[in-house]
């Protein structure tokens, strides 16, 4: 194609040949970018090890789904769509921008494969992409600048507003789109004026509008604009590239790696240190994270990748009730500390503890490990493992709230947080009807199935009905089952998650031995926390099921027959416990059981399944007294339950039962909404006549 305008490579800008200027900008830009990235990698290299190179097919699938297909973005509709437009636009325009940079010093460069028809198709596509990105940037800018969704607010304790950063970057992106369009439109306009063959320009695209506006402009003006647009595009391009690693837009570069290396095992807690076995733990000088470089390289990459979008904190139940925890600011503040300690220019600064300087102890204790933040994060950042690592360090330094120390002491002495006698662990069996016999499994009596109620269900009188209902169901099914009785210890699920790893291991080892001695072939539990512990935290124990899995299998096989709804309940809603749902993906199992009761009408809460709202947490969390809290999570959840119009809420976790019962009573729903554990509902609906 014949050029009417002189290409940038052949013009002279302020006396410098265009080709030289373009080459200079490119070389300087790439060198600066390379240097910045090298500096940013320093803390990652100092981080602790973290094996993330296994299961490549799954990792590639995650990249396709969560990165390329932006799967989590539409969970927030408007922001999600805007992001998808900008993201897809960026992918399409990456080729165009690169070739624009190259033609600055190599004017005849054409991207391999993009000569001919493919080039024409691409050219049309990228015109629309640039237009769409510009429109998305304008809308996004208006949103951030004028409408200011609450999600982006920065509470005073966490620093100043970040709005300018967002708008500045939107401006840079918009600039890239505008100058790219102008560069093309000036050439097309000049060519049209001279009657030369013009490049196809996509109708109604940004470049198309520019070409019409500029249609009658003198060629000299078009030439000036053409050259200016080119070099501004070039300058913004490299400035943007080098600016990315200084803020939340680092994610443009890091998010793909963050998704590739994201955590693959739900509900599992990272070991104290990867590659160090339990037996070698005593040799470790320190547990957990005190300084930023105690985090693993991947956890530091998480901080770099945080987009500051606030979706985590928007979903965090602790944040919602006014506890001093905002996952977003854990990331942002830790990232800022990394930037400060490991600056791009200048010396690396000496390390300083994170706690009480960058992070607050109570923020870290406030987390219920419900996983809502991780579920929501569009770039797959992790929080729970970081909380646990930070807690491990606090435990080692003795910085544990007094209320938790009591419970931990009781767990150490008695194997349960209540400090009750071991022999009383099976007292719940006493009020069962005579025909429901609960055997104590051990070396003499070895039933095939072991029921593991765990501490809360065993000791808390208001929860023992769960154990009795479970025993009744097992009896109905003709199961050969027993319990460990006084040999059972707390599963330690929360002990581990509260950072007391050695106590957890003591409890785990005691249970593992007792289970082994019982000769059980399988374990069932009615506590999702125990289920998660037995399947994820324990090794070498028989396969474990949550009682809902056991029930559903037997409903489907016809062993369990259920009577029509006996309860005075017109509408039932189901509350997803965190360790059933998000951590184990058992969303449908309990729902199918409810639906198997004839006559039961079930409705969903707005926040259900993977966006379920934590009841307030289990195990040790019951003992934690947050210094700041506007209301309890259970109260907030009770209102969500009330809003569905349901008069019965069913859950399948002892802690949900405790917290929600309390929440219902104290938020004005007493007498309007009842709560029941799934086991109790099923036990009441067992059809004994149909057996």
């Amino acid at each position: 194609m014949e050029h009417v305008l002189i290409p940038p490579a052949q013009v002279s800008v302020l006396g410098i040949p265009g080709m030289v200027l373009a080459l200079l900008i490119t070389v300087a830009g790439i060198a600066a970018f390379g240097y910045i990235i090298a500096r940013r990698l320093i803390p990652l290299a100092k981080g602790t090890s973290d094996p993330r190179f296994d299961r490549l097919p799954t990792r590639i699938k995650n990249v396709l789904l969560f990165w390329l297909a932006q799967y989590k973005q539409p969970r927030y509709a408007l922001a999600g769509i805007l992001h998808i437009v900008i993201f897809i636009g960026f992918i399409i325009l990456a080729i165009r921008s690169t070739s624009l940079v190259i033609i600055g010093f190599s004017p005849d460069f054409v991207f391999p494969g993009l000569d001919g028809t493919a080039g024409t198709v691409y050219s049309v596509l990228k015109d629309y992409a640039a237009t769409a990105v510009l429109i998305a940037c304008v809308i996004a800018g208006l949103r951030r600048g004028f409408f200011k969704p609450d999600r982006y607010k920065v509470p005073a304790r966490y620093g100043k507003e970040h709005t300018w950063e967002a708008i500045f970057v939107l401006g840079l992106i918009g600039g890239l789109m505008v100058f790219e369009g102008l560069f093309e439109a000036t050439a097309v306009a000049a060519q049209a004026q001279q009657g030369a063959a013009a490049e196809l320009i996509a109708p109604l695209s940004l470049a198309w509008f520019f070409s019409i506006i500029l249609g009658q402009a003198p060629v000299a003006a078009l030439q000036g604009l053409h050259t200016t647009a080119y070099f501004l595009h070039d300058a913004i391009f490299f400035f943007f590239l080098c600016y990315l690693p200084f803020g939340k837009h680092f994610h443009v570069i890091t998010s793909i790696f963050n998704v590739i290396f994201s955590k693959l095992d739900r509900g599992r807690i990272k070991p104290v240190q990867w590659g160090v076995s339990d037996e070698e733990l005593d040799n470790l000088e320190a547990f957990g994270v005190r300084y930023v470089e105690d985090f693993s390289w991947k956890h530091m990459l998480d901080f770099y990748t945080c987009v500051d979008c606030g979706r985590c904190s928007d979903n965090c139940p602790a944040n919602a009730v006014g506890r001093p925890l905002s996952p977003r600011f854990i990331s942002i503040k830790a990232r800022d500390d990394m930037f400060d300690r490991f600056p791009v220019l200048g010396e690396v600064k000496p390390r300083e503890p994170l706690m009480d300087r960058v992070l607050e102890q109570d923020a870290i204790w406030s987390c219920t490990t419900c996983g809502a933040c991780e579920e929501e994060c569009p770039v797959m950042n992790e929080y729970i493992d970081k909380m646990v690592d930070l807690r491990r360090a606090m435990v080692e330094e003795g910085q544990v709230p007094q209320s938790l120390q009591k419970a931990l002491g009781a767990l150490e002495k008695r194997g349960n947080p209540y400090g009750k006698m071991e022999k009383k662990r099976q007292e719940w069996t006493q009020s069962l009807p005579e025909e429901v016999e609960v055997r104590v499994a051990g070396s003499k009596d070895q039933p095939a199935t072991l029921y593991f109620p765990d501490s809360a269900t065993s000791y808390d009188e208001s929860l023992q009905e769960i154990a009795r209902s479970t025993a009744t169901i097992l009896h109905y099914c003709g199961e050969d089952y027993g319990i460990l009785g006084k040999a059972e210890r707390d599963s330690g699920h929360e002990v581990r998650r509260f950072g007391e790893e050695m106590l957890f291991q003591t409890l785990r080892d005691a249970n593992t031995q007792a289970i082994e001695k019982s000769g059980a072939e399988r374990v069932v539990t009615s506590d999702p926390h125990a289920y998660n512990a037995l399947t994820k935290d324990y090794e070498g124990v028989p396969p474990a099921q949550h009682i809902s899995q056991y029930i559903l299998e037997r409903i489907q096989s016809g062993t369990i027959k259920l009577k029509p709804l006996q309860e005075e309940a017109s509408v039932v809603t189901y509350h997803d416990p965190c360790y059933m749902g998000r951590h184990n993906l058992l969303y449908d199992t309990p729902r199918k059981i409810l639906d198997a009761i004839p006559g039961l009408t079930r409705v969903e809460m707005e926040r259900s399944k993977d966006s379920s709202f934590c009841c307030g947490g289990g195990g040790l969390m019951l003992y934690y007294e947050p210094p700041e809290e506007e209301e309890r999570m259970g109260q907030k959840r009770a209102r969500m339950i009330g809003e569905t119009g349901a008069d019965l809420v069913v859950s399948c976790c002892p802690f949900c039962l405790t917290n929600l019962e309390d929440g219902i009573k104290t938020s004005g729903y007493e007498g309007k909404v009842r709560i029941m554990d799934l086991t109790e509902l099923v036990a009441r609906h067992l059809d004994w006549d149909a057996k």
Partner: protein
Amino acid sequence: MNILVCVKRVPDPAENEIEINSDGSDIEREDLVYSVNEWDNYAVEEAIQIREQHGGSVTVVSVGDEDSEEVLRREMAMGADQGILVSDDAFEGSDGRGIATILKAVVESGDYDLVLTGAQSDEGAAQIGGMLAAMLDQPYASLVNEIQVQGGTKLQVGREIEGGNQEVNEIELPCVLSIQSGINEPRYVGIRGIRKVSGVEIPEKEVSDLGLSEDQVGEKAARVKRVDYFHPEMGEGAEILEGSTEEVAEKLVELLKSKGGMK
């Protein structure tokens, strides 16, 4: 400042069901779990905090059987520099004065500027601190809930007074203080912390090591003897509040106000 803290191994009522044994001489000791006396734990934390700010050392001492070593280790894991276990069959049956006599010998065998005890322990007599101070001819303050070091010769101590009032005293060193719970927030000691000090030698001292004679301690020397031990019978007067949650709460508030439990 060199600080000696006296600690005792006791059954914590939060982790035990305390029952009287059949002959009414003691509590049922089978199936009990033991911890460090709660008040003593506050005293150790306070001593460690003083050392952290002003230097010196913290020594913990316990009079008891070999099992008492576990509470010494726990306090050492907390941060005490060394432990002394005072254990001898001859101590069996000592009354409060006997224990104070043993502790006096321990204090005199070392060089301590400050001796701390818990305000009381499981038996609730709250007598050791005062007796020990008298035997040592040192000043004494009880129920201390605040300590400020003033130079090398004096302390300023806060004391809890009946009715929630607070008193502040200056006290000369060396002295003995009995520590009230709530003076600080004792740090947590995990299993890992205890394992880390598991290899540290804890010297064990007997009657002869302390320059005591057998007739100064133990049952023979005791001038206070327990003659009975029982749980008082439940009296009349339990009142069950009835009504809705709000009504019950309202009645309870009224009751508490009328009895002076709330203002």
